[in-house]
Structures are given as C-alpha cells and as structure tokens.
C-alpha cells in the first residue's frame, strides 16, 4: 500500500469507531467469522443480530483483543487490533456474567476502576452514578453470589462502564433479563448514545434490535444484511426484523 493509501486508511479508521476488513477466524475446520467487512461510525447504537453460532461473539472477541484473527484487519478507534493504546477507551461486557461472585459489587467495580487507573474521587462519582442507573445502590456491599440473576447482569454492565469508555461492546446484554429490566437497559443504551458513546451489542432477540440505529445481520460468520431496521424490512418487504432476517438468509443460500 502507498503512503497515501495508508494515510487514507488511517483517517477512515479514525472517523469510524470500528473498521473491519476481511476479518476471518477459523477454529480447526470451522470458519467462525468468514471474511467480515464492517464499518461502524461513531456515536451510534449498532446491533449485531443472528442465531447462536453466527459468529457475533467471535467477531467481538477479536475486536476487543481476546482472540487473534486468522486473517484480515480490524481497527477500533483508528488503532489496529489487537489494540494497545486505546484499551481504556473501550468497554466490554462478555456474554457470560464474568464478574467475581466472591466479591461485593463495590469490590468488583473498584477492581476494574483500579485496572483502568481511575482516580479515587472520579471512581466514587462514577460508582454512585452507575449504581443509581442500574438501581443497585442499596446492594453495593452485597456479595455478587447473593444477588439475583438480573442484579448480577446489571452489576456486570456497570463493570463494563466504570471507566466511561467511548466504545462499548455488549455481548448479549439482555439474555436472561426480565422484560421490565430489559426496557431499563435499552433506555440506558439510548442514554449512552445520547452522550456520544458508540454502543455495539449482540442479541438474538430480533424484536429488540429495532431499537438500534443500524443492524448487522450475521449468519454463518458472514454479514448477510446491514442497514436501519426500517430499510432492512423495506428491502425484504417484511414487517418485522425476524422475517427480514429469514428472507435475507434465503437469499444468501440462493
């Protein structure tokens, strides 16, 4: 690539929160992510949808640096993955609960705050703010193992956001969350977006994906459709995202 080309690529990367180019991940014989191309501008709510095994989690794990790509390139906030410099600018909530159940909520939050080198005063403010949002202020000093499933989920979300990241990867944040709480979660995601954050989440609940600005539909490691929920439904002459997905899946096979 020429110097000029490199510069353009870099500029494009900076403009986008995520820029993925022919990203591929193979596990032995299985192709989990199949030459994925993706571009996610900053400040939007992006939903990756698709059935289990469609490569959503693998793609996210590569973007946050937990998995090495077999081939292809990816940039997060303009930095080539695996990122080193921008680590503190991204937040990641794994699909699994992934918080220390033998610590209290406060201790979990404090651990991650310390790993992100957050000032004690700043941490205290952030903690109060987050615990209020997720409605767990009164359980701050409870052991996570003593919390209900939904509470654990909320605590896990708080851990991903304690350092106020610019880009947040949320892998299946609403799985196993009761409907009432789910509404609260989506309100908070919209709030994050309103504050200029880029939120990238995966879900296999097609009905809730309509709340995203842009939806990327994945199947067998490939992106089979991308756009606003409305445009995807229009393009497939369907009235809901689930039907749109099925129509696109049929086209992909054909």
């Amino acid at each position, binding site marked *: 690539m020429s110097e000029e080309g490199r510069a353009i690529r870099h500029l494009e990367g900076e403009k986008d929160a995520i820029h993925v180019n022919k990203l591929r991940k193979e596990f032995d014989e299985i192709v989990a992510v199949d030459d994925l191309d993706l571009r996610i501008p900053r400040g939007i709510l992006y939903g990756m949808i698709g059935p289990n095994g469609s490569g959503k989690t693998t793609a996210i794990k590569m973007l*946050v640096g937990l998995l090495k790509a077999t081939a292809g390139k990816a940039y997060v906030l303009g930095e080539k993955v695996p990122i080193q410099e921008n*680590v503190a600018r991204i937040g990641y909530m794994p699909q699994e*609960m*992934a918080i220390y159940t033998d*610590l209290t909520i406060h201790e979990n939050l404090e*651990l991650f705050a*310390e*790993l*992100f*080198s957050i000032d004690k005063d700043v941490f205290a403010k952030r903690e109060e703010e987050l615990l209020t949002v997720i409605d767990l202020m009164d359980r701050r000093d409870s052991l996570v193992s003593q919390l209900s499933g939904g509470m654990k989920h909320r605590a896990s979300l708080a851990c991903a956001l304690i350092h106020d990241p610019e880009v947040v990867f949320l892998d299946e944040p609403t799985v196993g969350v009761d409907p009432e709480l789910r509404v609260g979660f989506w309100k908070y995601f919209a709030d994050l977006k309103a504050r200029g954050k880029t939120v990238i989440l995966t879900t296999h609940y097609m009905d809730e994906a309509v709340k995203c600005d842009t939806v990327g539909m994945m199947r067998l490691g490939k992106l089979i459709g991308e756009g606003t929920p409305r445009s995807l439904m229009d393009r497939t002459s369907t009235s809901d995202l689930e039907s749109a997905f099925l129509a696109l899946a049929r086209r992909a096979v054909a």
Partner: protein
Amino acid sequence: MRLERVLAIAKKNLRSLKHDRRTVGFLVLMPLLMITIFGYTFGGNVKNVDVYIVNLDQTPANQSLATAIITNLQTRDTLHIVKVYTSSSMIAASTEKVKDADIWATIVFNETFTQDVISAASSGNGQPASVRMTMDGTNPNIVQAISNDLQTAIRSALGAGASAAPISVVPDLVYGKDARFIDFFAPGVMGLAAMMVTFMLSIISFVHERSAFTLDRLLSTPVTEGEIVAGYALAFGLVGLVQSSVIITAAVLLFDVQIAGNVLLVVLVIFLLGVGNQGLGFLLSSIAKNEFQAIQFLPLILFPSILLSGVFWPLESVPTLLRPVSYFIPLTYAVEGCRSVMIRGWGLGGIWFQLLVLAAFATAMLILSTYGLKRRR
C-alpha cells in the same frame, strides 16, 4: 508493568478469601492439624548415611576390634562409609566435613581401642573403651540410625553374650544439640503446607477465572498478562507466608521448637517456595478444564513431594533409584534451607544455593505462566 494494577489483582484475590471464611479456616487449621498429627507419628528407614571413619587402633588388623566393627558396618546399608582414615591428622578435617553438612558423622576409634576393650572386659570394673563420634544433629532420625547401627556393629563384633559391652559411644553433636523429631520436621511441615496451599489456591482460582470468563474481562482492560501473574504471585505468596507463620508459632508454643537462625531467612525461603508453587498451579490450570480436573493434579504434585523431598524422612531413606527425582522437587531445597536456618543456625552464606534454586524455580514459573497466558489469545 504497573504496580497499582498488580496490587489491584492481588487485592482482588485476598478479598475473595476474606469473604470465604471456611477457606480461611481451612488455611489456618490444615497446617495446625498437619503439624500436630505428624508431631506424634513418625517413621521411615534410614539408609546410606554418609560418614567418615578415623581408625587409629594400633592393634594389627586381624585382631583389631575396630576393624571388625567397621567390617560389620559395611555389611549393612544404614551407613555409607565414604572414607576410612588411619591418621589422627584427619580428625579435624573430618569434623569440618560434618560442620559443612557434607557428611553426617565422623566416627573415631583411638589408638588403644582394642586394648581398652580387652582390659575393661577382663578387669570387669575398669573404664570402658570409647568410640568418639562427631555428628550433625539436624536430623534426629539420622542421629538415632547412626547410633543404633554402631551399637549393633559393636555387639556383633564382640560376639554373643556381650550385651553389657565395655564400649561406650561418646557422641558430640555439632548442630541440634537438643533437637527432637519435632525440630527436624517442623521446617518440613512448614514448607509442605505452604506448597500445598499456594498450589491449590492458585490452580483452583485460576481455573475458575477461566471458566467464569472473568479472565476475558481482565484481559480486555489495560492489565497485562505479566501484571496478572505478578498479582497472583503476590497474593498467594503472602498467604503462604501467613500459613508458615501459623506453623512456626504453633511449633514454638506447642512443641517448643528451636529456631537457631534468623527467622526472616525462613520467611524468604517459604515466600519463594510459595511464589514458585502458585506459578506451577497457574501453569497447570491451563490444562485443567474445570475445578474438578484441577483437584486431580493435587496428588500428582503432592505425593512425590511428601515422599521424596525429605519432609518426614531424610533423603538418605529415599531409594537410590528415586534419589535424582528428589533433586527436581523444589520442596527439597526449601526444607533443607529452613532446616539449616532453624536447627544449624546458618545464615545467608549457608543457604544461598537453596535460595538460588528456589528463586530460579519461582522466576521460571512466573515467566512460563505469563507466556502461557499470552499464548492463549
């Protein structure tokens, strides 16, 4: 590497323990139980104890009782007679060898030994002849074995009916003058407990860290693999230290164990052993898929350590074929180091080699753990 992140990881591990009272109770009670149980039960056959003999007996060899005793000693395998000198000038050099812990004892028969025995036996009430022995008393089991074996050899050399042998054995202990079994194995139990706990805590915590995906979360923060490994080492190395303090205190208060040297050196030995073994646990945790599999490693690591590292039985009782294995077990060096400090009263100069081996072990484990964690990505 940033200290604040290492400390954050260490704090996390210690806090987890704080909330788990049962485990903390176990961590304190287990070593207490061990030292108490082993304090009252002890066994093992000692073999191939290295000794020098200085035989100055002037009686011709074919009539010399000293020669007969030496020949008899050679027929059994309790003692391994490395050298037999016949010059009195070698007494001092041989004693030095005992002081350096190169050999366990020097046995000296004086010039008139055979004649003394004969005159003592014929006069009936004369002074008994004496065998002088300079011994390293660090290991009471070995002291006992040398004394017993020498008595047996004397009895057979004198022939039947000589139970009231006109020969007295005069032992001179260079270390551990009042050492009892408990003095000998308190350092061993301390090392063993620290090793067990650090290994177990580390392998189980880290397997859990993987299976609960908290490791993924940690690795998506700025914390580096090296910082995670260092944080673990710090936390569990400290736990090992607390444990050995419990044992030292119990040993001193309950069993009146002597500590001849600097207790801080003992602490250093135990800390290095703890760090090394937590590293080993960390490393093996990558092979185990869950906590259940992790537990299965425990006997694999523990049994060779218990049997071959000299914790309860001296290395001299380890079958020759397995002896090389002993030298590959870090606990062997920790136990030897602690014993040298606590019983022999040795300082840094005396245990530098053990410290070096343990430091190398700990460093290797930490580097390999970090590398193993990096490879995972």
